[in-house]
């Protein structure tokens, strides 16, 4: 074993941070691009994931196809996925996606597989009696799913979907290989002329952490608004209207018949 001389460079800690401020516009634009790709991919992934979850819960051979998909794409790294879509598909299919599109597709391929598992667990957590109650009321099975089972399952799935969103934002960092101008690509570009990797990558790391905090904040708010009774400011606006409607109906019926 060779002994490596440790050379501590404390001066770096208080030098060159101005560099980050000088390039703040590019870095923030990079973060915005990353979040845009991740957000578009999240919406599509939730939809595709839900379909996959239903596929896995249905009868063979549909369930087999869905579980093959899930197991293949859960295991694929984002870096491989995006190269495959951007370079591979264009060779075979002759489709040339933009870097943005390729990034979205790569994320959807992977994360729809994860989200399908999240939704499957959430759907299975809804007591059988809920579906039965809906059916016993003469509701169409599809309507029971949409109005009774799905909202309750979504409430359970939301925290995990939030975690997936954070993962998606982080995985956009690999899209630097196809030239997407996200945080890492921007950082690399600045670094290639300034040679300050410590400062620049610290800034990049902080941007990701910042994004994660923002996502956490957002999903907590959504979670709160889905609790019963709903809490938080987002819910306040929506439920306020509903409350007034209910109060109105109650008053009307009371007026006809006297208090209950």
């Amino acid at each position: 074993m060779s002994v490596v001389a440790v050379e501590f460079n404390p001066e770096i800690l208080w030098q060159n941070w101005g560099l980050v401020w000088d390039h703040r516009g590019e870095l923030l634009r990079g973060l915005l691009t990353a979040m845009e790709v991740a957000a578009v991919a999240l919406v599509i992934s939730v939809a595709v994931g839900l379909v996959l979850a239903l596929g896995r819960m249905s009868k063979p051979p549909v369930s087999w196809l869905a579980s093959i998909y899930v197991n293949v794409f859960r295991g694929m790294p984002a870096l491989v996925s995006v190269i495959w879509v951007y370079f591979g598909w264009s060779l075979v299919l002759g489709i040339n996606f933009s870097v943005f599109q390729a990034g979205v597709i790569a994320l959807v391929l992977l994360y729809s597989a994860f989200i399908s598992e999240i939704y499957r667990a959430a759907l299975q957590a809804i007591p059988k009696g809920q579906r039965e109650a809906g059916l016993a009321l003469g509701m169409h099975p599809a309507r029971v799913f949409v109005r009774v089972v799905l909202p309750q399952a979504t409430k359970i799935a939301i925290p995990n979907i939030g975690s997936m969103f954070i993962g998606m934002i982080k995985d956009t960092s690999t899209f630097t290989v196809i030239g997407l101008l996200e945080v890492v690509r921007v950082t690399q570009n600045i670094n290639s002329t300034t040679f300050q990797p410590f400062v620049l990558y610290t800034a990049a790391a902080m941007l990701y952490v910042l994004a994660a905090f923002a996502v956490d904040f957002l999903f907590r708010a959504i979670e709160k608004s889905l609790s019963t009774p709903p809490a938080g400011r987002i819910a306040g606006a929506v439920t306020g209207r509903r409350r007034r409607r209910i109060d109105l109906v109650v008053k009307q019926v009371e007026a006809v018949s006297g208090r209950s």
Partner: protein
Amino acid sequence: MRTTAPDIPVHDVSEPAPVDIAHVEPPTRVVVELRGIKKAFGTVEVLHGVDLTVHGGEHVVIFGPSGSGKSTLLRTINMLEEPSQGSVRVLGVEYGPGVPGEPKVPRGDALELRRNVGMVFQQFNLFPHLTALHNIALALRSARGLPRDQAEEKAAIALRQVGLLRWAGHFPAELSGGQQQRVAIARALSLDPSVMLFDEPTSALDPELVGDVLGVMRALAEAGMTMVIVTHELNFAREVGDLNVFMDHGLIVESGKRGFFDTCSNPRTRQFIEAVL
């Protein structure tokens, strides 16, 4: 204290009263008719061929030990359990797979069936993400196709009937078990069903809250609703039951009209009643 004889016309029992044809009660209409119901879960048969007829306005009480198949039998009436064999006839329409040997008849749509049959569950099964009012309004909009305003108004009226109009804007988690069950009853009633099924409606309730729910059910019975009730509340059963059915091991052991609890003769029935009452 009554000091004089009651003013009741006295019949001469030796001579049968002349039958006035115009006053003969028409046979009450059959609402539910189950014949030869068998149900197997996998290889285990839990109902071994059960017959049950429910007439309009009748209150049928089904009781018996756990695992006797009484809930399963109830659930075949609205096709929450599809019988393996047998005829389920509701308001004259066939929904079951039929009795072997009988000619096949076209089967009705389960969706239509359930819109005519209300059901109340042991675990209430209110939708936890909706307010009491919207639990009922959703049913009315889905099954009756009512527009939102009408559905909400009708839902409020249904809540008033069970004394919970004040709780319209509350979520199930904010209501007591008894209140939840009353909302569930209101929800089923709002669809104006021809028959109401109760699957152990008080078994999951605190003893203190049972009375409220039984009160609503008693009022419903007095109003002439056709009811099929699976219950362990034998005192209530004795009070409202027009037809009392004792089940054990997937079969009807014994059944009888009012007074059944005092007159039943099967030793297994007696044993069960004495253990419970």
